[in-house]
């Protein structure tokens, strides 16, 4: 059983940071995948609305990505310090 002092190692902080960034990528993937999926479904149902749907899809994707990239930025700050 290794002692808990392993948590004081700087490498552990960087490992934690990178794992956190990976989880944020999972969240972004799920979110934007959902947005893209429903946008495609709506375009299939009503092709004449395509332009509107694409613009709104991008806006929603930017908002979701904002949150995920906030986690990535935090991971950078922790990982490089």
């Amino acid at each position, binding site marked *: 059983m290794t002692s808990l002092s392993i948590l004081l190692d700087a490498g552990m902080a960087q490992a934690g940071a990178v794992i956190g960034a990976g989880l944020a990528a999972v969240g972004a993937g799920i979110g934007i995948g959902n947005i893209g999926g429903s946008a495609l479904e709506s375009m299939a149902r009503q092709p004449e609305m395509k332009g509107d749907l694409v613009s709104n899809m*991008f*806006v929603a994707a*930017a*908002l979701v*990505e*904002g*949150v995920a*990239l*906030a986690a*990535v*930025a935090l991971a*950078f*700050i922790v990982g*490089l*310090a």
Partner: protein
Amino acid sequence: MKLISSNKQAVSRQKTVNKRFIVRLFLIFALLLNGKFSFANEEVIVTDSAKINTESAVSHAESTGEHGGEKEKFNAGKLIMSHIGDSHDWHIYGSEEHPVSIPLPIIIYHPEKGISVFSSSRFEHGHVSYEGYSLVEGKIKSADGVDIYDFSITKNVLAIFIAAALLLLIFIGVAKTYARNPDKAPSGFQNAIEPMIIFVRDDIAKAAIGEKNYAKFMPYLLTIFFFIWVSNLLGLVPVFPGGANVTGNIAVPMVLAVCTLLITLRYGNKHYWQHILAMPGVPKFVLVILTPLEILGIFLKPFVLMVRLFANIMAGHIVVLVFFCLIFVAGAASTGAGFGAAIPAVAFTIFINALELLVGFLQAFVFTFLSAIYFGMATAEPEHH
């Protein structure tokens, strides 16, 4: 610029417009390129955040330790942080031993000695002290240990000036053309600018704020939209005057978000404040929880705005730099591997840069659109039930 007609008056007017444009362009760039080039020794890596100081201290010690010996190992993290961070000179090209860079003015206020203004070339990239000040890992420290106030024109400040100069050049020209001939159909460069302004007016301001109040917010919305977009685009250009990471430096989105916050608070009407401080139709015991959350929300919304813009642009720059660093990291193993890695790395970098063009526009649009939504919420009239 092509000639617009064979009419002699129109031709001479077009020529005057050409000459004026070129003269303005020349004046603005002559103003900005006043610094002289300098040759010196090792360049100091500069970063903004104090948290990164330990890492750069270690790499600084590493590099000075290997000064006498063979070339130091390629440090990707150091290269990336030096491209993303701020610095007191604008590095154009050249290795660490012989950099070619534009030295920028340093303006320091010392509580006892007063204001000092000098060129950053005096520091010779961090090797020499000047007037009791020295450049330590990008931060200027005073020899007597007193905290000084650094108002220098750094690379990001100069990049903001360049973006502002570009915006003024474009829009004052376009506005003058409109003022001179208000009823004429748009021609030339106006054709490019007018749809964008109409887009901000119709799809952002009118959609979010409504017909009645949108006009007074238009100057601010237009300014932040075009400033963020132009800064993002200039950040993608690798050579001077582009290439500075303006919106990816957390200070710039912070200022923009604070401006949005101040305007929202200034123009909030009674209806808006009532909904925040004492939401009608809610029992008192829920209000005890709801009101602090709403007040937190006032500050949280611009904060998320800031983080979204900062993280998107910084992450984009880091991804591009990482793809390029892959070439050098592979090259450290063997030269052949370096050349081999160059082909997919360049392909990925082209793709990511194209994506960054889209992201630059999208982030400018989202920032402006959300600011407009906050203004719309602040000035919303109560619906009559």
